[in-house]
């Protein structure tokens, strides 16, 4: 069968048993990239030589009988805001067009230690600010499900690459839904772990208190297996959590939701939700019910405050995090400048795109003297209230269920003209970032136009085990054609 039909875990299995060679797997991906990349523009940088060298080395080690790691020889894509030693890391920005880090992100190190072959850096909204991958300095990425549509964002390149078969799995980052929403729009699985589960070291910060790295894959098992690899306490990130025994997410996958209490926030099914999305998500809830879960609709509350609180805090943190890009030390520097002030002004005016500038201005404003209390502090208080509302919900439910986004993938060019409308699209995903809880997007059918719809499941903080079990059970219950074929053949 076509190598590209395998999930990452399946491919790793084949490579381990020497049914497929690492170079062979890599070449299958190259062929797909050669044939289709021009159509999708998933990647900012493709690293053929390095990847080939590494794949060949891994193959020799596998043949020598070495135990390498769970993803030995599996081609992975990495979002371009995760630093990769010796490979340029642009964050989708002109500001870092030529920036080559001397260090790798902790998550990248861990992935490589598990044997992964990093084949390239994926396109993204500039500095992860956007929901469409259209704010990238390196052009838009097209949705492999419909080239006239955006792939979502900000990890749109990673989601599209997985969907298009231009890699087996990818890393993305999720500050307000940036893993889950593109996964939803491209029909793949995307997981945002509990804040602190994956070290942020080497992730170029957007909003430090909400940024979290997560996997995008073909199925829940891939995401769980990748999380097993990238999760772990890291001394280089003071916000990283030591979860001790709480790993082994892949091993926790069981098809069993018997008696599981699933809460569905009724607030999520009000106006603005596309009918096709509503139907797909409500059908998914019924699947849980049919499999023995207790499904209840309830009032979560505070939903209308989520977007303003998020954009206030995220912009505040971003305005400070992006101060380091000044043309002095690295990155873009404007030419023909006379004074230090002009150097800053011109460099940042030319180096950043419109959406980044909008958020820097917004963040600068909300932190300014006289506005700090009214905006930033108030948003933090709202954040505490939202967290409390979710804590109460998780006192009653094991998992919360809802849509990932109010609509399926918008058409190219539709979103950026009205930023406020674009921000409102994040309404369902943002809470997981404000509260730190884990959430996953799993495909749950298509809308009227045949575009993929994502089901969002949210778990309590540190409860990925339960969350993944719910997602896995659902996925198994509604297994898509492709997956059935692959696993049937594999077992057969």
């Amino acid at each position, binding site marked *: 069968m076509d190598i590209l039909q395998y999930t990452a875990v399946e491919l790793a299995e084949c490579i381990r048993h020497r049914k497929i060679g690492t170079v062979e797997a890599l070449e299958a991906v190259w062929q797909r990239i050669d044939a289709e990349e021009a159509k999708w523009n998933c990647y900012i940088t493709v690293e053929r030589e390095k990847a080939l060298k590494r794949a060949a080395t891994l193959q020799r080690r596998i043949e020598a009988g070495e135990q390498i790691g769970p993803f030995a020889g599996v081609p992975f894509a990495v979002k371009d805001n995760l630093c990769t030693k010796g490979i340029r890391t642009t964050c989708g920005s002109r500001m870092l067009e030529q920036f080559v880090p001397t260090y790798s992100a902790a998550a990248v190190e861990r992935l490589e230690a598990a044997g992964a072959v990093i084949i390239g850096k994926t396109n993204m909204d500039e500095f992860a600010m956007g929901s469409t991958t259209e704010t990238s300095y390196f052009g838009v990425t097209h949705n492999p499900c419909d080239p006239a549509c955006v792939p979502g964002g900000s990890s749109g390149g990673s989601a599209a690459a997985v969907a298009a078969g231009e890699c087996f799995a990818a890393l993305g980052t999720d500050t307000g839904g940036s893993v889950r929403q593109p996964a939803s729009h491209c029909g793949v699985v995307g997981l945002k772990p509990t804040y602190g589960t994956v070290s942020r070291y080497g992730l170029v*910060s957007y909003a430090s208190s909400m940024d979290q790295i997560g996997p995008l894959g073909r199925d829940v098992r891939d995401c769980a297996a990748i999380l097993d690899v990238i999760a772990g306490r890291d001394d280089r990130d003071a916000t990283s959590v030591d979860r001790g025994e709480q790993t082994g997410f892949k091993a926790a996958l069981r098809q069993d939701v018997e008696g599981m209490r699933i809460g569905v926030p009724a607030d999520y099914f009000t106006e603005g939700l596309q009918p096709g999305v509503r139907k797909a998500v409500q059908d998914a809830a019924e699947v849980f019910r049919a499999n023995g879960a207790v499904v209840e609709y309830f009032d979560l509350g505070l939903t209308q405050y989520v977007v303003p609180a998020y954009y206030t805090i995220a912009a505040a943190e971003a305005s400070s995090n992006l101060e380091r890009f000044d043309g002095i030390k690295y990155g873009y520097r404007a030419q023909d400048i006379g004074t230090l002030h002009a150097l800053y002004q011109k460099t940042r005016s030319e180096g950043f795109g419109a959406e980044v500038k909008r958020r820097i201005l917004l963040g600068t404003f909300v932190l300014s003297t006289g506005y700090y209390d009214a905006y930033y502090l108030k948003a933090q208080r709202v954040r505490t209230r939202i967290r409390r509302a979710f804590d109460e919900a998780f006192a009653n439910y094991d998992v919360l269920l809802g849509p990932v986004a109010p609509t399926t993938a918008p058409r190219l060019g539709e979103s950026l003209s009205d930023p406020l409308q674009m921000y409102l699209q994040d309404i369902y995903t943002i809470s997981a970032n404000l509260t730190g809880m884990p959430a996953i997007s799993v495909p749950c059918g298509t809308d009227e136009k045949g575009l993929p719809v994502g089901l969002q499941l949210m778990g309590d903080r540190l409860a990925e085990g339960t969350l993944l079990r719910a997602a896995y059970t659902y996925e198994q219950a509604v297994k898509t054609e492709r997956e059935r074929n692959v696993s049937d053949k594999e077992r057969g």
Partner: protein
Amino acid sequence: MANVYETVIGLEVHVELATQTKIFCGCSTAFGGAPNTHTCPVCTGMPGTLPVLNRQVVEHAIAVGLATNCSIAAHCRFDRKNYFYPDNPQNYQISQLYQPICRDGYVEIDVQTPEGDRRDAAETDNRKRVRIHEIHMEEDAGKLIHDGESGRSLVDYNRAGVPLIEIVSEPDMRSAEEVIAYLEKLRTTIQYLGASDCKLQEGSMRADVNLSVREVGVQTLGTRTEMKNLNSFHAIRNAIAGERERQIRLLEAGEQVVQETRRWDDAKGVSYSMRSKEDAQDYRYFPEPDLAPLHIDDTWIAQIRARQPELREARMERYQRTYALPMYDIRLLTDSKQLSDLFEETVACGAQPKKVSNWLMGEALRLLRERDMDPEEICFTPEHLAALIGLVEQKEITNTVAKEVFAVMFTQGVDPRRYVEENGLKTLQDADALRRVAAQVLADNPQSVADYRNGKEKAISFLVGQTMKAMKGQADPLKVREILQSML
């Protein structure tokens, strides 16, 4: 009719903490490396890097807080201070604004004759309390080097991320003397704690002076200015006098003092306006999201308290009790922890305390001053100083020789016994040889001999001196006098 003004002063003192590594990364804090050699992706603000707090910094800050009677916050956190400048790699400094680690402390200073009004600060006899508003932790910035020839500016990030504490006093000081007494107090306390070497000249202790004036009797504070670039006690004293005068001149002329930051030029003896309150930047402080809030429990504080070394005041009392030294000696010795440690170690080697004190306060301090050295640069060991004192006591060498030997010990750290031996410096005990030299001196100085015989007792001193000179100091002057007397 001239009004009488009093000066109101509060200080912001930055102290560089004596840690091996920087506050948020593992880079060395050592002074003087080649530019950008003590740097890493974290302290140069590379994308994706994160700060991790150095525990030692917190412990030093707590130790200083305890020694200055502060309450230690059970919860504190860091904040970002945002401003663009190339010496600041992230363009924000990680500091503490909203929840500093220490608050509401005080130190007591000895004050001279009271001057002006002191109702603000509690005071007993000639002791005065200077209240400490807060102590917070923060990171230092890098250094800009302006190359005049090429017109370029270069940045050295070796200092970026070096840990600092800022000690903010209340406006409790009324004179330069009080300011210096306060700074001396902080300096010795922090040095005794081992939290910093506190060298003003090298910048490991820096003071910004907030100063206002008001007519005596007025309760409200006047408009203050902040003065920077004060890197010696001398500069601080001059700057205070200069700024006081400037403000009084303004007020007397019916003008107003503008709240601003001023830079003191000590060479010219004038200050310049750096920026006014209107130009002041909006630092947009907000809680540092990359660092978790810091919880300091009582156990941790108790551990640090238990480890707290003896501070200067306690040591002074102990010296009075144990060594019966004059207060003058005790003050001088304990002014430097190094010197007083050396004193105690030498006494522990068996030397008599007052003799040790005399050597340290006399010859040692004289040589230090002469060479512009600090006590920590002393290279002789307590054993050697004790041995030297022993040699004098046992009359093996004379005082003159001992000073000569001490000077060599001071620079080269030699063993005095061996040095005396190898250079033949022992006091000559051979009476016959002494008599021969004395006879020669008497023969060479008939006038003095005659004077003595005519009743001029003093003439013998000259003859003793001449004999000692001929003996190259290697004789006991009492014995020489005795022999001369017997021969005359």
